[in-house]
């Protein structure tokens, strides 16, 4: 295979990775749940694209399969499920603006820079390219976690969780050309089950505190005298 062809693919991958990162920013900022779900779906699509590219770049043919898996799961099935849930929970009008958006963005950017700084010591020459992708995916993971921290809405937290998964997947695909198939299947299965369970929990929570605001779930605490 010729070099520039490869570089083109690489450029494409970098672009896609950047867009993935962008989507997670969108996710982080998005006030309306439905829109957030859409953003998440797009992120899934992008990850699937990356997978396809890596697969196309040769060695890992089984990645086509996992690309399909990702597309089906992350881009279609889970968003659809969440959408349905949101509608059934009458949350589709729900919007929760961030309290200090500027601060959050700052934090997210700091995380991005931090993850770059983190992977710098990985010095082997042939890794330079992949290490940047790893940095991006690490940033996606951390931003997802950040999102779970700042969002008081259960569904939003789940979105954050799922985008973490996306980041993981991105890393797996771009850095290592995917995990062994066995593992991938297991991971996918777990994600699916997790999604289903989340659905179950939404209703349970809703039934118990008739809201999905996680800040209102603080019965179990040790701070008796402070309360």
């Amino acid at each position, binding site marked *: 295979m010729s070099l520039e062809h490869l570089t083109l693919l690489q450029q494409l991958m970098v672009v896609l990775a950047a867009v993935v990162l962008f989507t997670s920013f969108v996710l982080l900022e998005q006030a309306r749940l439905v829109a957030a779900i859409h953003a998440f779906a797009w992120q899934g699509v992008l990850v699937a694209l990356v997978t396809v590219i890596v697969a196309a770049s040769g060695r890992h043919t089984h990645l086509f399969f996992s690309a399909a898996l990702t597309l089906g799961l992350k881009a279609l099935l889970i968003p659809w499920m969440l959408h349905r849930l949101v509608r059934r929970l009458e949350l589709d009008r729900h919007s929760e603006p961030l309290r200090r958006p500027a601060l959050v963005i700052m934090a997210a950017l700091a995380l991005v820079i*931090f993850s770059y*700084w*983190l992977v*710098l*010591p990985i010095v082997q020459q042939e890794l330079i390219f992949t290490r940047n992708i790893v940095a991006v995916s690490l940033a996606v993971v*951390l931003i997802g*976690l*950040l999102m*779970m*921290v*700042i*969002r*008081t809405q259960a569904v939003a937290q789940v979105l954050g969780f799922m985008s973490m998964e996306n980041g993981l997947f991105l890393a797996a695909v771009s850095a290592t050309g995917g995990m062994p198939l066995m593992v991938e299947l297991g991971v996918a299965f777990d994600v699916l089950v997790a999604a289903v369970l989340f659905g179950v929990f939404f209703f349970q929570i809703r039934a118990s505190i008739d809201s999905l605001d*996680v*800040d209102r*779930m*603080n*019965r*179990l*605490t*040790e*701070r*008796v*005298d*402070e309360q």
Partner: protein
Amino acid sequence: MTSSGALLPAALAVGLALLSTVVSLFSARAPRVLRTLVMPLFSLAGLAATGAGLAALLDGGVSIAQLPLGLPWLPWMVRLDALSGLFLCVIGVVSFAVGVYGRGYVRGFEHGRDPLPPLGGFAGLFLAGMLLVVLADDAFLFMVAWELMSLSSYFLVAFHHDQAANRRAAFLYLLMAHIGGLTILLGFGVLASFGGGFAFDAMRGAELPFGWASVAFVLAFAGFGMKAGLVPLHAWLPEAHPVAPSHISALMSAVMLKVAVYGFIRVVFDLVGQFHWQWGVTVLVIGSVSALLGVLYALMQHDLKRLLAYHSVENIGIIFIGLGMALLFLATSHALLGTVAFVAALYHTINHALFKGLLFLGAGAIQHSANERDLEKMGGLLRRMPWTGLFFLIGCISISALPPFNGFVSEWLTFQAALQAWQLDSGVLRSLVAIAAAMLALTGALAAACFVKVYGVAFLGRARSRHVRRARPVPFSMLAGQGVLALPCLLLGLLPTTFIGLLNAVPQQVLGHGLAQATAHGWLWLTPVSPETASYGAPLVAAALFAALALGLWLMGRGNRRVRRCDAWDCGFAPPEPGMQYTATAFAQPIRRVFGLLFHIEEAVEQQRDGRLRHHLRVSDRAWGIFYLPVTRVVENAARQVARLQSGNVRIYLGWSLATLLVLLWIIA
């Protein structure tokens, strides 16, 4: 398993103790088992232990065996030498007496609400634990036995768990025992890391630098001192000892504290095997303070068993005064004097075991027959229970260190050691020893005062409450149990030379030399240092005392021997009511005024609803405010701060995860 003959009786003793535990499991169905089987087994175990101990003391040799237990590379090893032999005797004699006494005493529990198996079972484990502590030859078995002893005795303390105060006492006891155990464990850890092994032999071989040796010493002193009840680590003792059933209190006060003394001697004198005057000073000071404070607090009590418990603090203090002087003299290479002090401490150890056991059994007898522990309600018991009265009197005279009983001998020896202070080079040490001697003298006098109070209020005078007036005499077995302890009290007072000759094997083995001069003028005279320095002809004193008594009685007897009974004269006032007698509190009041600074006194006169005035007095231990409450406060605050971690909000939790992750990443990058 390489066993040698001398160990067999010891093994038999442990076996019998465990057997009594097993048997007592059946007392759930048939309560009589406790009385008819368990207690006899218990006393048999005591006998066997005594036999083993005597054998070891007489031949003075060392016999070692290895048990098929423990860790593969750290098997349990047992060792029977003179030192452990001596303590085996102490444990054995007292537990024999307790077993005999228990036959009658536990009858009172057969109809109680609490199931009996714990009472007998843990007593057996308790005894087994103490025996194993004395026998252990490696740190692992030692610690196992030690904690077994603490744990089983804790269950016994918690036997009467209805009152919250008792539960609190048991909790405090277990907590401090556990902490003490941990400190001892760390002490062993230091020795082991230098000696390269947990076997005592390896530790003996260890060459510690002064710094680490001192660390080991401090750890051991703290741990064993906590168990022995040295001030300021004594707080659990007066709480826990009174709470247990009386025969157990006797075991705890008389024997368990001695096991702690054994541990201290074993570790500091035998395993560490080096002496520094700094250590001696530490032990001496702590010991004297414990002795004085112990007796002063004892004077303030009016709960009989609590009072006795505080006296244990005092006597342990006296023992440690002896040990401290021994360290001091040995460190300044006065071997003979060190030995004198050492022997004095050992002798007092035996004595205290005997008379404190006796006194607790007496208190138990009172509780059994009058169901009363409060001195303020007693009185005139001598007429109701003459034999118990006699034995208790013997106990009182012994513990007050009055001739011709045993307490005096050990106090005399301690004084003799102290009086050799002039041989020390440093004036500071000399004056320190002198002051310790002064405190010892003060302690002795106060102890006498305290037991005049106890005996006078409890047994003499007139009953201060109805149920005490109706006290019924106790069964024979309980009297026998007391007698078993009263007799040696007299013997050790009469024949000190014989027993010191027996003791001599211990310093021979631990320090390398005994008291050569002890019987330089024959067995009649006890001359610890040299005949010129001091001598005490105990048998002769006793003989003369009895001769003078007989003479007096004979002379008087020839005249009119009849005595006319009449009302008390009392300076011609109206015949006094029992309520007008001096109470225990009243008796101690002058001393409370003199030493008022040392107590935490709450005194108030409040008017009740019916208009009558009520005097309310509470004397409590200053140690609480100074040492214990701050610690609890610190822990509580720390816990409150830590609780912030568990705020209840899942987002904060996630924040924690994120923060942790970032910090770690920052660390490694």
